[in-house]
């Protein structure tokens, strides 16, 4: 068991002919992910990593079955790619691309909501169900199958924490990054609901950061639903000054909102254990 992607997931890669798309397709195939082909307009009929390239999703789906999409195309074309994937009824749609205009992100999310499509990202490392399926750019060797679900707003910090869980003997059910942008497809609450239903997930590591109020909303949800599984959280950005964007477009403290302190407080208020450093998460999960 896992969430969103697993052994049976078959994916199409948008931007498979680009350097990132081609490189990561190779790594995903090596991991055992089932990828049936790629989409690059104008390059239909070619092959990349032994896979067929199609001009359109419609053509690809006439030739083979797929149920998920992963998007590597540049920001200027990412909305178009995401809308094509949604229209092709692929679900989930993982958008790796960073730097997409917020107006486009809002439109993608509105269409996805109407069609019931789950969008992971944009600006995400992707999703991995260890031992089964990797749809993303994360280094595979740091993950191991197990019982911890991991959800994060960050990329390399996710790797840091996944590696420390694995080193501590705590494998994972599914790990995913919701994305570092202000407007993303999944909230912490959405993912917590999925992990709640997944019998294999026994504990959850939740990695937040300054900016927005996704962590506060998660805290409220956890408190109200008396969330039945152990959650350990970590919030990055205690040293961040207000008004400055810390790398991620979404990581900015505006006024008094979005500080690490308010997030940590509200999570603790909801009974969530909050680690003060990334390495502490594994210890706190083990103890519970």
């Amino acid at each position, binding site marked *: 068991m896992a969430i969103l992607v697993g052994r049976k997931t078959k994916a199409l890669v948008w931007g498979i002919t680009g350097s990132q798309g081609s490189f990561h397709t190779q*790594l995903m195939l090596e991991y055992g992910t089932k990828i049936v082909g790629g989409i690059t307009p104008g390059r239909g009929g070619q092959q990349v990593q032994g896979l067929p390239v199609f001009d359109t999703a419609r053509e690809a789906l006439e030739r083979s079955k797929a149920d998920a999409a992963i998007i590597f195309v540049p*920001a*200027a074309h990412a909305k178009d790619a995401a809308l094509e994937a949604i229209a092709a009824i692929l679900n989930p749609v993982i958008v790796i691309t960073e*730097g*997409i*205009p*917020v*107006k486009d*992100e*809002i*439109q993608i*999310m*509105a*269409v996805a909501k*109407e069609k019931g499509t789950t969008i992971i990202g944009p600006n995400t*490392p992707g999703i991995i169900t260890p031992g089964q399926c990797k749809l993303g*750019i994360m*280094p595979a060797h*740091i993950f191991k199958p197990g019982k911890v679900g991991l959800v*994060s*707003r*960050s*990329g*390399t*910090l*996710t*790797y*840091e924490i996944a*590696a420390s869980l694995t080193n501590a003997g705590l494998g994972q059910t599914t790990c995913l990054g919701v994305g*570092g942008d*202000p*407007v993303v497809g999944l*909230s912490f609450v959405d993912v917590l609901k999925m992990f709640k239903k997944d019998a294999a997930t026994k504990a959850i590591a939740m*990695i937040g*950061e*300054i900016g*927005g*109020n*996704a962590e506060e*909303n998660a805290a409220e949800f956890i408190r109200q639903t008396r969330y039945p599984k152990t959650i350990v959280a*970590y919030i*990055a*950005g*205690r*040293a*961040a*000054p207000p*008004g400055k*964007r*810390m*790398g*991620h477009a*979404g*990581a900015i403290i505006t*006024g008094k909102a979005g500080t*690490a302190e308010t997030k940590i407080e509200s999570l603790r208020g909801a009974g969530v254990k909050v680690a*003060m*450093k*990334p*390495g502490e998460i594994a210890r706190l999960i083990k103890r519970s």
Partner: protein
Amino acid sequence: MPVPDGIVAATPAEVKEACQKLAGPVMVKAQVLVAGRGKAGGIKPASTPEEAERVGNEILSMTVKGEKVSKVLVEKKLASKLERYVSIVVDRGSKCYTILCSTQGGMDIEQVASQNPEKIFRYQINPLLGLQEYESRTVAKALGYSGKQLTQVAAIVSKLYQIAMNYDAELIESNPLIETQDGDIVAADLRILIDDNSLFRQRKFLERASTYEPDMTQLEIQAREKDLAYVELSGDIGIIGNGAGLVMATLDMILDHKGKPANFCDVGGGANEERIAAALQIVMGNPKVKVLLINIMGGITRCDDVARAILDIQKKMGIKIPMVIRLVGTNEKEGQKILADANIPSLNSMEAAAAKAVELLQKVQ
């Protein structure tokens, strides 16, 4: 948009001339890319051309929140009866644009939001349909308008939305939107924030975006030109890492070890030689930096390549201050050996690396 008559001026003499042309009392407004210029003294009234010249001279020699004033807008002063607030912002949680408006215009809207939240009316815009005319009227009504004024205000709201969409705005705001003694509605102040990510299709803003940067340090501007996420802080431990979350966590850890980070610097998820070199140049440009901590979670990147790159850059730039490097990922053993041979401490855990950086700082001092 109905705005007051105005003329842009770059010298006190031009300000005087503008005031003469506008024939009456004026407001002289600093043209700077910062919010809150009024409070900082960047907006002043003048009733005669002579006074306008004097006020213009004052404002044109000012620096508002770090930005030098090079132009002012000389605007006809309107006697306002009422001041309103209208803006359209990106609503992260609801994933849509939201209209915020209030009858308490002319004030700091964040203050209104915290003290009198009931005075703010919010209206979410359906992203698939865009703002409809009846919705603009609903907003105008919420601001207390009816009759001819309702139509006027609704037209302004619709126009704000159009501008926001056409120019990829994260925020568009009129504060205040005024009602003159004659009952006309005029946007006395307008502010727009363009989404940085849209600059590939909003090219006319590209040049201004890179040259005018309020409240930014010299190094922050340089970093921006090199597409590096860099924020200068007040401490003495220089930090470079890959990935925003990881760098934030590194800063936090330095703080926990009673050290003070000198900066935030993210070279991006992958960590190639060129970007690390650019980052080193920026971070070392800050004379306060006494110790350098590099935290690379290589992942797919090969650590031996990163280690060689760091040594290469260190030699080329002649970096003399102590460095601590935390390097993990593919080929990490080889990478760490290369660094150890060059007498640079390299560690597996970021916690140990942060502790080491603070320890080295104490030795330097």
